[in-house]
């Protein structure tokens, strides 16, 4: 399984990617939307894990852009913000929505579901 993780917090995203790698998942990470877009253009991913709030471009917008690059890509939205608005968007845009902080098991589960959907 190939996963692209996008979050502006490098310490978070790098650690998460490494943990997924340890668990046998091919995980790449990006801290900006442009980096994420260029990675998606060069490599085909199964699932993208996006932070909803990022500087420059929101996770929602990024999802749209990534979708146009690769229509088969599945998405999981992650946020530390629990506002109603975000929740609604998350629910509408994607069936997978996780609140930070989360257990790695939760993410693995969601990844599994996303791929098998």
């Amino acid at each position, binding site marked *: 399984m190939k996963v692209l993780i996008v979050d502006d*917090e490098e*310490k*978070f995203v790098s*650690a*998460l990617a*490494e*943990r997924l790698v*340890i*668990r046998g998942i091919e995980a790449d990470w990006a801290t900006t939307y442009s980096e994420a877009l260029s990675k998606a253009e060069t490599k085909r991913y199964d699932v993208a894990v996006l932070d909803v709030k990022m500087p420059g471009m929101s996770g929602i917008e990024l999802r749209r852009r990534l979708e146009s690059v690769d229509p088969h890509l599945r998405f999981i939205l992650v946020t*530390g*913000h*629990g*506002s*109603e*608005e975000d*929740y*609604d968007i998350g629910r509408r845009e994607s069936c997978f929505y996780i*609140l*930070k*902080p*989360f*257990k*790695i098991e939760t993410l693995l589960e969601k990844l599994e579901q996303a791929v098998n959907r």
Partner: protein
Amino acid sequence: MTISQDLLAKFKPRFLDSGTSAPPDSVLFNYRKFWLLSILLRAAVSLIPMSILLIFSYTMENEAIRNENRLHTVRVTSNARRAVAFFLEERLDALRFLTKEMKFETLKDSAELAEILRNLKIGFGGFVDLGLINSAGVQISYAGPFDLEGKIYGDQNWYIKGIKAGSFVSDVFRGYRGLPHMIIALRMSLEKGDSYILRATLDMKKLAKMLSSLEISEKSDAFLCNHEGLLQTPSRYYGNPLERIELPIPAYSPHSGVLETRDKARNRILLGYAYIENSPYILMLVKRSAEIMKGWHSIRKQINWFFAASVIVILLLVFGISTVMVNKIYDADLTRLKAMERLESSSRLISVGRLAAGVAHEINNPLAIIGENAGLIKDLFTLKKEYQGDPRLMQIIDDVLESVERCGEITKQLLGFARHFEPEITPIQIRQVLREVLSFLGKEASYRNITIDLDIPDDLPVVYSDHGKLQQIFLNLINNAFQAMKDGGRLVISAREREKGSVSVSVTDNGCGISEEDQKTIFEPFFTTRVSKGGTGLGLSITYGLLRKLKGDISMHSKLGEGTTFTVDLPTNPEAEIRNESPDC
């Protein structure tokens, strides 16, 4: 409480104790002072003009009646004087006629004189006897009831005066007969130069009768007295003839007059008097002021009663109106104060919620970093053989991860307090929701021997609300009640349609209660009394947020040591607009 106390409590103004229970700055103004001022002002405005009018009219009436009485007394006295004077003059004229008409020889003969007296009595009346006295002062002929022929009168006052003046009216004296009487004397001069006196005793009774007819009211008195103050005719209150009257003798005046004075018994009297010309008499008419004013006093008494009744009615009205008015102001102020307090506390809760959400958000990101990096360390340790077997390291990492998880739970709850998901409104039976909630807690209740009474009427209307949120609300409240109670406590859950469109559900426990200090902050996040037992202090604040979202309301009533009641008001109306107070994060 007895009926009278009940009544008293009903009429006791509500604001009277307002100064004592509430802190001084929360009372908008001094109701008691305002109330008293209002009563005083109203009473003064209505009573003072009334009293002034009453006093003014009393004074005027008094003056008018006094003047009228004076005038009346003068008039009556004047008339009486004329009558008495006429009476005397008439008798004198009769004698004068006799002296001209009758021959001296006829008058000298006592038998003839008796005939004349008889005719006088028939023609005029008022004569008692008749006598002729010669110049030596000897009564040479007499006709009348006494045997006075031959008596000598030469030294008597009336005889001397009569000879001198030609005619004389005497005052009352006893004389030879020993009885009080008055006489009139007329001189008749013969050609020879001899002077005789024709004398007649007048009937006092006739005069007295004439005077008594003047006594208009019962307590008035009319009589004659001479210039020395000796009574001449009988009086009702001031003695018998020839006794001295205890009244001031007014100075001589040719006209009738009136004096206001006091008699011996210190009664105020109105004394009408008139000097009767050509006689030693003063006519006196005494009226007692108290008697004169009697009729007026009885009217005044009625007016006074009416006035007193009016004053009482006015005072009652003034009291009532002022009380109702100040009560209304007091209630309005109280309502406003309460509304202000509620507004303040709800806006505080909202801002606290906003803050909490902000804090939670800021914390969640670093928390995620800690979590992932700690997880990474664990993963790396698990891979490397030299750390794998070290239980202490593993334990440390697990502790960190567990703490991150706990923090995550708290921030999620915090966000839950601020976040309001769109509720899903469906018709709900309160009984059904409560049964579901109690089924979670039934085990704990039976284990702790807690009695749960459900008091829900069958006709309770259906509530349109969010099922899951209602469950959460009741779960929180009942859970709190359980925490507050000791084993063997009693929980009462009752539901009522309190007013149209609203159902109240109250959860009452007989637990430890909440102190007044804590009651103020009970709905704020992180407020908990169960610090050591792992309470997060978010239960009630979340409940509060949920209820606001459902357009409901929550209130509490608690007494330390007796228990607590939380009351939840829910709208039954499906169209009820959902409150939108969610902070814009």
